[in-house]
């Protein structure tokens, strides 16, 4: 794995390849259950959003599967380490397959970069293995010479289906 996304950016403005590497690395950290490092990729005021509705525009007055700030994300990460987290005994594992992320927009003046990534995500625990198909939209900016995620939006293709437990991060 390239260290590019982890290391400071080579210049003030990220290249397309640096954006792509960053998104790929995020998925890898989840797969490897390196959740503390994963959380560090998020800006302090970031949100992780999984809409409940197809083409949902409002996370506030329409319900979502997840719409969590960094406090709630860090609670999830802490919980995964807990001795009495019974739904994670044994632990879930997950696996991402990403298409190459596409850089949808680069706005250097506004320090705003958006990528769009089609992916398959598999979560497994005990005998169950479940496949989800989704698109991840990453809104990123440069902070102290490093990329940070401001918003990650995960649109699951069957967002309105009745799911069992989805325990990790897509």
């Amino acid at each position, binding site marked *: 794995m390239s260290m590019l996304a982890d290391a400071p950016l080579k210049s003030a403005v990220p290249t397309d390849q640096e954006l792509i590497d960053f998104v790929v690395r995020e998925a890898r950290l989840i797969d490897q259950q390196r959740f503390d490092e994963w959380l560090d990729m998020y800006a302090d005021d970031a949100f992780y959003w999984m809409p409940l509705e197809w083409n949902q525009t409002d996370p506030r007055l329409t*319900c979502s599967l997840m719409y969590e700030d960094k406090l709630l994300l860090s609670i999830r990460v802490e919980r995964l380490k807990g001795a009495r987290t019974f739904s994670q005994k044994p632990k879930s594992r997950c696996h991402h397959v990403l298409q190459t992320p596409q850089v949808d927009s680069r706005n250097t003046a506004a320090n705003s970069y958006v990528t769009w990534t089609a992916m398959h995500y598999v979560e497994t625990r005990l005998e169950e293995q479940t496949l989800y198909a989704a698109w991840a939209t990453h809104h990123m900016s440069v902070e102290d010479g490093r990329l940070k995620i401001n918003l990650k939006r995960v649109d699951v293709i069957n967002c309105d289906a009745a*799911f069992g437990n989805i325990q990790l991060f897509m």
Partner: protein
Amino acid sequence: MTRYAGNVAAIRALVRDQEVHRDVYVSEEVFQLEMEHVFPNSWVYVGHDSQVPNAGDYFGTTIGTQPVLLVRHTDGKVHVLHNRCPHKGTRITSETCGNTGKFFRCPYHAWSFKTDGSLLAIPLKKGYENTGFEQSHAATGMAPVRHVRNYRGFLFAKINDGGLDFEDFFGESLSSFDNMIDRSPVGQLKVAGGVLRYMHNCNWKMLVENQTDTCHPMVAHESSAGTVVEVWKKAPPGTKKPMAVEIIAPFMSSYEFFENMGIRIWDNGHGHTGVHHSIHSDYSAVPGYFEKMKAAYGEERAKAILDENRHNTVYFPNIMIKGPIQLLRHFKPIAANKTLVESWTFQLVDAPDMLLERTLMYNRLINAPTSIVGHDDLEMYERAQEGLHSNGNEWVNLQRLYSPDEAEQTNVAVNGTSEWPMRHQFRAWSKFMTMGM
């Protein structure tokens, strides 16, 4: 093998004063009998007025495992119809909800029906001449569920003609609906925000029981609510408590908190936790809301409405409502070991948006398939569903704070950690299961 069909004594023997037999959770035969008796004999929640506001609007749901649909007829009345074509059984509607216009049309052979279910037309009608078709069941159209009741916007239906009438079935328990609705300054609710659907590999009654189980939160939810409390402790002093922490942290309240909050028992398996206070009692005030309530109801009445903090009100057989945050959970049975949970949220008409925002946040943080609190619960249900197959002990213990004279009592408030509500639900279960057998 049939052990229970038509065998009233065997069914009654499944429920003892202080314990129930595992077959009520694991037996497919018992499950089928529930679908034939418990659900058709009960007033089952089918939806809310606001889901079908206009003539021709429909919404599909289930009574037990039977598909039905609600539809608003041209005269404004809501009908509940069995969702099958009387011809060959095809489900009539293709979407869960929508507007069908003036009539339903079966997509298979184009039989069409008025929105009250009556037969409107059949193509090539000549083919039925001299066949005695007029006397057939099919000629009557889509079969209606005959007993339908709209209680302040909440729609209930009963399939069987026997059983109790609406008032006798619910009695004083409707006060929890009243309180939830009265929280709107205009006394009106509206379904809003979308429905969360969550599939559970366990028996539906485990979910219903859990709504009045106050000895599990501080244990099962230590991983979620306990972590919230721990992480929140590290916040710099003076940080404003986020809405999410207000919502999740009270799940870690002490046994004493839950003992003192109390449980109320009504007839027919209904009841609620949170007689004196609840995990909803200490939410921050929403700016502008009390002023609106005061203007609508007067100060004293407004306070009385908002001081009621019922936690979970369970309505037999399969819904729970949370008045203080306008939420309804529908536990839809699919098989003995499979249940679909739908969590519906309501907007208080003419109240600030922030109340709906809180309701939705609660739903997402507690009831979503992605919710860590939900994960804690489901793990326990699924372990129980498996563990019950052990022959080491065929009985589930429901003995906490049992009192020998309790079966004769109704409308009493008891210790908040009592398993009386669960015993009470099973007494009702036994009654509606064997009613008419």
